[in-house]
């Protein structure tokens, strides 16, 4: 059965986009930060959050292929819909990075080339920066030995090579998996089995790329905002946030489709399993968040605590709020079996922690990029989020209309239909 986008859903998504756009424009008018830094930071937050949902869905999809999981075959197309956002989702990110490279914003402090040289010749705009004390050179007041020490990794050409590599890989695999999935609907017998094995191998390959890229892209795109600070757990923490956001989106989308009468074969057990994933990954996220925090808090080394000190001193509500929302709400409300099978509970908890993880991305990006100019969530933040949400929903729902919502010939389909736990 094909999904058709109802007029109501269409007008709601467009309404979200227009409402959000109005609020965003009003917000930008009121953004008096240097270089409209707040606007750029918001673009990064939302660009990254929604891209992360697509990426988390792509990861989960590949994981299901690589582990040859049967139960999730029933909801495979929903994940395909979610990761279809990757096709467009890279654009806001690239706009932010390109603007940063062209010094239209100062999100990435390390992109300032003057930081890397110990000496300078001349003054002002015409100054020449040099690494050695040549004739007439004076000490460069901008020189930052910590950032200069990271030059081998944090330099613009390498940053762009990496960014293009991640985006190209993700967009390529998203397209490839989708094409294979559609092809599987038309095949039976031996050729279908061959395609299954091919998918299995390619998914495993993708997971290898993803394991490395998901970690490094978090360093590049988010952690390098706080250039002086570093944390080895950061990549996993960011990845857990993406994954749980993707699972929440998937379960809410499945419940929406089921309520509209699509996906009639999705039963309580499928919903229960997806609820378990939301519950489990919330704990993974909490575990990583807390492990990162606890080690830094305990050792109390100046170069490490800066990140948390800034957040605890100036934004304690955001810092502890995101932690407790994203930890306690799913723990308390999704612990029992009945709650994980109840659409009402799942949608309630899902919506709360969806916002919670968006706040978490704000918590990662905003204090580092805005410093004292960050005064919490305002009109601009909410407006930009609403716009992105509208675009995201429209892209995903539109992708869902393109193919039958239930796969047709998948070898595990029968097992998935009879899934019972």
């Amino acid at each position, binding site marked *: 059965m094909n999904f058709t986008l109802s007029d109501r859903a269409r007008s709601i998504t467009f309404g979200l986009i227009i409402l959000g756009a109005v609020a965003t424009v009003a917000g930008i008018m009121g953004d008096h930060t240097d270089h409209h830094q707040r606007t750029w930071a918001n673009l990064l937050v939302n660009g990254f959050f929604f891209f992360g949902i697509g990426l988390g869905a792509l990861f989960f999809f590949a994981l299901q292929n690589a582990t040859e999981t049967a139960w999730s075959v029933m909801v495979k197309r929903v994940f395909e819909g979610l990761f279809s956002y990757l096709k467009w989702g890279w654009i806001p990110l690239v706009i932010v990075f390109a603007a940063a490279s062209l010094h239209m914003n100062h999100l990435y402090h390390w992109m300032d080339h003057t930081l890397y040289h110990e000496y300078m010749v001349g003054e002002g705009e015409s100054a020449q920066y040099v690494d050695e004390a040549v004739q007439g050179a004076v000490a460069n007041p901008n020189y930052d030995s910590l950032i200069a020490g990271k030059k081998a990794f944090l330099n613009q050409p390498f940053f762009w090579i990496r960014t293009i590599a991640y985006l190209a890989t993700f967009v390529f695999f998203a397209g490839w998996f989708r094409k294979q999935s559609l092809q599987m609907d038309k095949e039976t017998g031996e050729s279908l089995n061959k395609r299954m094995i091919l998918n299995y191998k390619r998914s495993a390959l993708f997971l290898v790329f993803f394991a490395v890229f998901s970690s490094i892209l978090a360093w590049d795109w988010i952690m390098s905002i706080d250039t002086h600070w570093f944390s080895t757990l950061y990549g996993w923490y960011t990845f857990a946030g993406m994954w749980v956001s993707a699972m929440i989106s998937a379960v809410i989308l499945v419940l929406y489709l089921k309520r509209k009468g699509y996906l009639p074969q999705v039963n309580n057990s499928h919903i229960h399993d997806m609820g378990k994933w939301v519950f489990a990954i919330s704990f993974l996220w909490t575990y990583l968040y807390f492990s990162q*925090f*606890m080690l830094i808090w*305990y*050792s109390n080394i100046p170069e490490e605590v800066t990140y948390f000190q800034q957040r605890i001193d100036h934004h304690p509500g955001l810092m502890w709020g995101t932690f407790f929302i994203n930890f306690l709400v799913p723990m308390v409300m999704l*612990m*029992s079996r009945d709650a994980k099978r109840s659409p009402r509970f799942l949608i309630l908890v899902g919506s709360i922690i969806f916002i919670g993880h968006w706040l978490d991305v704000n918590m990662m990006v905003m204090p580092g990029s805005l410093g004292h100019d960050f005064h919490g969530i305002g009109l601009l933040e909410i407006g930009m989020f609403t716009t992105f949400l509208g675009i995201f929903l429209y892209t995903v729902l539109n992708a869902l209309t393109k193919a039958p919502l239930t796969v047709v010939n998948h070898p595990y389909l029968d097992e998935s239909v009879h899934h019972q736990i």
Partner: protein
Amino acid sequence: MANKVIYAVYEDPELLKDGARKLVSNGIKVKDTWSPFPIHGIDPIIGVKRTRLAIAAFMFGITGTCLAGFGIWYFNIFDWPMNIGGKPSQAFYKNLPAFVPVMFEFTVLCAAHGMSITYLIRNKTLPGMPARNPDPRSTDDKFIIEVRTADNHGHSAEAITGLLRETPVFEINERQY
């Protein structure tokens, strides 16, 4: 008339499920089933209630958290104040991050042990307890349904065995008890 217990032996869990369905649809109460491994989906057929082990596990876990919290407070804050991570704040809530791993581990320890021991006691399978298995083959490759005439006053033993013979049963044993 002496009470009888009837054991219907099957060679496959799916066949056993068919047999159990047939009995239950004829109003016969199945006492229990015996199998070498858990049979998926048998519980609702023979009317076994959902386990409350999860609730017990939760209680054990909460007990563990509270015990660990109290212990740490007593050892490290009250009885012998500790300087934790260079932060001599001597308050439980200020040093909480350092205590969380211990409290978490103790929660898991209590929940896991409490749950296992409860399970073994409830099933009467603690080490050393006598086996209640009616037929040793049910630990190998046979799947057995147990029906007692005492539970089914409306049906004679002959009627029950007659029904069972209509299912793909491997053999039927009757015993007095």
